[in-house]
């Protein structure tokens, strides 16, 4: 639901209302004191404006209690707010015993998730509402940061260590997931979404996704969730340099490999490129594709192959010249 101009984020986790309350209290204090200073200044400016060239201000008369007063009061206020903030902080970082463990690994420009039952996802995380979740966070390369604004939680993924965050979704919905620690080239595209589902829907989703869709459609959905499209996509999308060959019109055509051999792009070639991409690299491309071995079930593999085969026929149908020759990527 794209609001035209949202001014406040949704509160969709157990800790969100507490953080919001703390934030409103502090905002109120800030606005009060800023307004107090502004009003005082404006009043003094008018009341004590200089009336003649040689007028000077009267010497100060106020006793010291005023000075002590506005040292103690700010100190008391800040310490109270500190205590309140610390309590909210510990609510965020101390998971209850019944929390279910999920894992995530931040890798340069994608999040890889794993559910307690081994189910894997990339860039999207499906979670049941009302279930406390302890997310163990790791990083494969640089420092990333797992941030879901709607849950008001954030935790850096530090390479070489495992850090942890705890949250419990309270409202079903699709919420933004951001990486908030600068991590290089496509830091701003290392985003995704956390999808909170009612517990029953979550079970259905876990069971293999919604039934009744054609193999190609399921393949297309899988193509998205596995983030294949982050690399395999047309050149023009957002001007980002393509990192992998286009799949439109691939199926059924000749493909020239790095080692000079050319072969037919058939089911077997696609299956192998998914499970063990490094074996056959298309000429002119870098071997950056991660393996999906163990991430896709046999059935999902079949769905993906039918989807890519459908891409091939569409291209032939709209007699787009099959681009067997991969575009030469500029030096990265």
């Amino acid at each position: 639901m794209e609001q035209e101009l949202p001014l406040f984020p949704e509160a969709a986790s157990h800790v969100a209302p507490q953080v919001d309350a703390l934030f409103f209290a502090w905002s109120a204090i800030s606005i009060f004191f800023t307004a107090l200073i502004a009003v005082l200044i404006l009043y003094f400016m008018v009341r004590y404006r200089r009336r003649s060239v040689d007028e000077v201000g009267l010497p100060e008369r106020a006793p010291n209690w005023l000075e002590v007063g506005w040292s103690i009061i700010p100190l008391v206020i800040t310490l109270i707010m500190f205590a309140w903030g610390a309590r909210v902080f510990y609510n965020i970082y101390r998971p209850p015993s019944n929390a279910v463990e999920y894992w995530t690994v931040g890798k340069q420009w994608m999040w890889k998730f794993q559910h307690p039952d081994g189910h894997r996802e990339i860039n999207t995380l499906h979670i049941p509402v009302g279930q406390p979740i302890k997310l163990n966070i790791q990083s494969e390369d640089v420092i990333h940061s797992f941030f879901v604004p709607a849950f008001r939680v954030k935790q850096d993924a530090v390479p070489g260590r495992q850090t942890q965050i705890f949250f419990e979704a309270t409202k079903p919905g699709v919420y933004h997931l951001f990486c908030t620690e600068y991590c290089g080239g496509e830091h701003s595209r290392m985003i995704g979404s956390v999808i909170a589902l009612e517990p029953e829907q979550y079970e259905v989703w876990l069971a293999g996704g919604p039934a009744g869709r054609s193999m190609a459609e399921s393949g297309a959905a899988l193509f998205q969730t596995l983030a294949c499209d982050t690399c395999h996509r047309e050149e023009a999308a957002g001007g980002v340099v393509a990192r992998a060959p286009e799949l439109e019109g691939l199926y059924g055509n000749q493909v020239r490999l790095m080692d000079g051999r050319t072969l037919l792009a058939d089911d077997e070639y696609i299956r192998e490129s998914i499970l063990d991409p490094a074996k056959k690299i298309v000429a002119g491309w870098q071997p950056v594709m991660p393996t999906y071995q163990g991430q896709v079930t046999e059935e999902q593999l079949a769905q993906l192959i039918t989807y890519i085969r459908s891409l091939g026929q569409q291209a032939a149908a709209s007699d787009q010249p099959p681009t067997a020759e991969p575009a030469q990527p500029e030096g990265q």
Partner: protein
Amino acid sequence: MSEHSTSRAVYFLTFGALMVLTAATVIVATFDLGWANDVVAMAIAVTKALLVLWFFMHLRYSTRVTVLTAVAGFFWLAILIFLTMNDYATRETLFPFPGK
């Protein structure tokens, strides 16, 4: 710094003390006292540093501001080390934060 100068004897005495302390720290290091080794080594090193500061570097005759500057330097180093170690020492102990 007032115009009088330290007599040579004081310098030689300080030199002697420093050599003795160096020998002492080496000898103590050959015994395995566990964590006490570090404490003793640092105690000796600090003593030697104070000797150098007080006699060789003429803090003995320096103005109050100069002495304060020297003390402030080492104190700020202590702030850096203490507060950084405050993080590392409590990574896993006090609050079971997800350490290793």
